[in-house]
């Protein structure tokens, strides 16, 4: 059995986090999403893996090289759709194969369920089906598949995970796999619908927080760093090599902290928080329900909740984030959302900056004493 992982697309709706990597490489619970997909395949004994790369391909390739698995990489020069991506890998495909999106989480059990059924789609109910390929079913067979319909006829959506035969390539007409599936159905081929157990897609950047909560549930406890004896650690908490936790810090799991971080003293880390490597959390700061990526510094007396913070940010003291519901304009669509903040890479903000339901682009500088509320700041902005 072979598996083709599609990781060429940028994931524009997750901007600004995709500036230096595609969506599949965004760390959730401190591991890039694609690593969970690879893990699930390996757990099913599938070791023949091909990854289609495109956008920021070097970053993906470098990561895959570091895994120590014999993964093959093929290059899709222009991102012309999922079927085209698959065609880029056609010469590597030997027989029956699985196709998986590299930027969605999938559990190993679901893969076990589909891998031996050729011509099948893994499906799942979703409350907002119009962002996906919606499938219509009859007796466990797919009768139609509609890509991103405005008014969805069903709540059952395609997870983008397919089990296919090599002959699939003769059905490709349009640019997407769903088009080819429709062609197959019309030609009278049977396409099975296999229900998925646990499948997570982050459509928008703030959805990563939900995925983070879910993936932290499987967190093994590990203690490689050093924690002061006056630290209170409860629940599953993983602390990486070289990390030091200062006195009077309270950590309530599930929490994962990477390598070489400096936390505290006197900080609070609430559940569902992922902290990358070389992060500094200054005294009297609290965080919870957050993803804080590598090399970020968060000043003292700050409150970072319901927030995704990119790499290399430097948030000065008394930064505060509050959760609010608002309406966001993402790639021309108006989306209702409820979260604190999504901060891109390399953001510098001064003391007493307040964030509420906002998206801040990469390389933004905010002088301080500012409220960034219900706004989207483009890359490179300067707020004085």
């Amino acid at each position, binding site marked *: 059995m072979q598996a083709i992982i599609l990781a060429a697309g940028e994931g524009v709706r997750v901007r600004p986090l995709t500036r230096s990597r595609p969506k599949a490489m965004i760390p959730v619970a401190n591991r890039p999403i694609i690593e969970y997909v690879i893990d699930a395949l390996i757990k099913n004994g599938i070791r023949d893996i091909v*990854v289609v790369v495109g956008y920021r*391909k070097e970053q993906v*390739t470098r990561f895959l090289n570091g895994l*120590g698995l014999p993964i093959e990489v093929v290059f899709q020069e222009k991102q012309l759709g999922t079927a085209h991506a698959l065609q880029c890998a056609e010469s590597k495909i030997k027989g029956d194969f699985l196709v998986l999106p590299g930027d969605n989480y999938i559990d190993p059990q679901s893969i076990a369920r589909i891998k031996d059924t050729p011509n099948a789609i893994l499906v799942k109910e979703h409350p907002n089906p119009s962002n996906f390929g919606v499938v219509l079913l009859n007796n466990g067979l797919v009768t139609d598949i509609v890509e991103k319909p405005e008014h969805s006829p069903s709540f059952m959506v395609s997870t983008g995970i397919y089990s296919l035969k090599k002959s699939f390539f003769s059905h490709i007409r349009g640019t997407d796999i769903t088009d080819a599936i429709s062609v197959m159905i019309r030609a009278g081929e049977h396409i099975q619908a296999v229900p998925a157990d646990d499948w997570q897609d982050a459509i928008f950047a703030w959805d990563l927080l939900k995925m983070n909560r879910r993936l932290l549930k499987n967190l093994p406890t590990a203690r490689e760093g050093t924690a002061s004896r006056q630290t209170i650690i409860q629940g599953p908490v993983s602390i990486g090599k070289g990390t030091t936790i200062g006195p009077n810090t309270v950590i309530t799991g599930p929490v994962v902290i990477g390598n070489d971080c400096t936390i505290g003293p006197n900080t609070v880390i609430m559940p569902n928080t992922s902290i990358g490597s070389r992060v500094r959390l200054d005294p009297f700061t609290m965080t919870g329900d957050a993803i804080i990526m590598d*090399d970020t510094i968060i000043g003292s007396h700050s409150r970072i909740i319901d927030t995704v913070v990119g790499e*290399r940010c430097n948030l000065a003291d008394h930064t505060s984030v509050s959760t609010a519901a608002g309406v966001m304009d993402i790639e021309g669509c108006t989306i209702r959302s409820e979260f604190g903040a999504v901060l891109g890479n390399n953001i510098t903000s001064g003391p007493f900056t307040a964030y509420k339901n906002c998206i801040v682009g990469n390389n933004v500088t905010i002088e301080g004493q500012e409220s960034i509320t219900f706004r989207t700041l483009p890359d490179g902005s300067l707020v004085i």
Partner: protein
Amino acid sequence: MCGIIGYIGRRDAAPLIVEGLKKLEYRGYDSFGVATLGTTGIDLAKHQGRISEKAGTAARLKGKTGIGHTRWATHGIPNDRNAHPHTDCTGKIAVVHNGIIENYADLKRHLQSRGHTFRSETDTEVIVHLIEEEYSIKPDLLTAVQAVIPKLEGSYAILVIAAGEDRIIAARNMSPLVIGVGDGEFFAASDITPVIEFTERAMYLEDGDTVSLTNKKIEIFHNGKPAARSIELIDWSLEDVRKGGFAHYMLKEIYEQPQAFYNTIRSVDPVSLPEEVLQAKSVTLVACGSSYHTGLIFTYLLESICGIPARLEFASEFKYFPPPVTGLVIGITQSGETADTLAAIRHARTSGCSTLAITNVLGSSVTRIADTTLFMRAGPEISVAATKSFIAQLAILMQMVNCLSERKYDDVLQQAHKVIEEVLLVDLSEAVMVCKKAQSIFYVGRGPFYPVSLEGALKMKEISYIHAEGYSAGELKHGPFALLSPETPVIALCMPGDTYGVMISNIKEMKARGAPVIAIGVAGDRDLPDIVDIFISVPKTPLFIQILTSLVTEQLLAYHTAVALGRDVDKPRNLAKSVTVE
């Protein structure tokens, strides 16, 4: 400069040797050959060209014992006849050799007068005829090789097989040779890259060692007496030497630079720096090629920040100067095998200087010659053009400057890798369009950016074959200015700091001569983008990191230009990875 490999064990030797030679190809790639112990005697296949392009019949040779060679010609043009392995007059003994036999002309005359027929123009062939003579007296290969060794002058790592004796005899003197210790099998190779797929246990030989390998045991002799060498565990993984999904090793290695810099900074522990460094009153550096440029950057930083006088020499020129009687001599060599640098360090030692080596390869020759060694943590570098080893050398040297200036730069060095990561995203397509059409490119900078310009130009000429020269911006007016025209792009390094103002005036002067100027400056610079044709912006950072960011930008520019011109980036014509001949 060549790559050699030998195998004895239970597998078929030839396919394994062919694969191994492909991994050693960076050491030379103008011809190759394999010899095995077949059923009837020695089977031989050798060809002109690259083994990665046509292994030909080499992989189909039979036998469980064999030797192979990939060549970078020194004596005799690359052709089938001059390719190794070389055989004696009877065709019963075969040898592969890396290095240069300096007294080969003498030996050859004597051998010819005794009736030996030479089939090639190489220096190597004398070895096999000498062994033939000894072997005819006493048919024992080990004794024969040991009798020949004292007659050879120069550098060599040799592997010898003889029909009827199921073993390989290896010997080394001033050329690299490592033994891989497997389970009922042994490997011998110029470096560990072809070996790590099969075993992680390696034995590094010393100069003057002779080794006998059978599939059961290894016997080591030093100057004729039995000796023991310890087994070391290799910490490089197979993945480290694979291209992965990258189009070229060079690009892979460029992308590994943030990690290489970070690992190296972390590995050079400021408290454990050798006393010689911390107490140094003056420093002399010896290096070749790219390493010379890192040395030059270091002299700027050391003199201006620490006030310690520093002198830098090309390793190949060092012997023509009387060495300083006191002070520290630092030799910089990625491979640890660069012949000129090794000679320079020996030269310094004999005159009583303390010596420090900076290298990327554990167990390489330089580590045994120098008093102390600092290792870069770059991992194996396969591409001929140095990239991550350059960055890692700089990491060590910058950390030394940091330690000699009360660790003022700890914070700066700790964050450098992040900025390098950022530079990898810089878009160079416009600059590449201009460079790929040029016949000549000039690189200019001032202060520490002058050596950065030299390195940028070196990268460009190495892999794109475009004539490129680095100048200090001030020197340009003393002659090279006459060469400027609208057809000669200038890459100007114009970073904020001491050199900024005068660089701006220099750029204006160059613009006045019609040369298109591509400037590398920092984001947020208001003046520079207006006066240059193409402005490449990198993040605004302190001086140490500016050096790194401008360097990485130049590497990427050279890489993308070479790719746009369709060059063989990883194996540029006429070049070899490390130069193990003087």
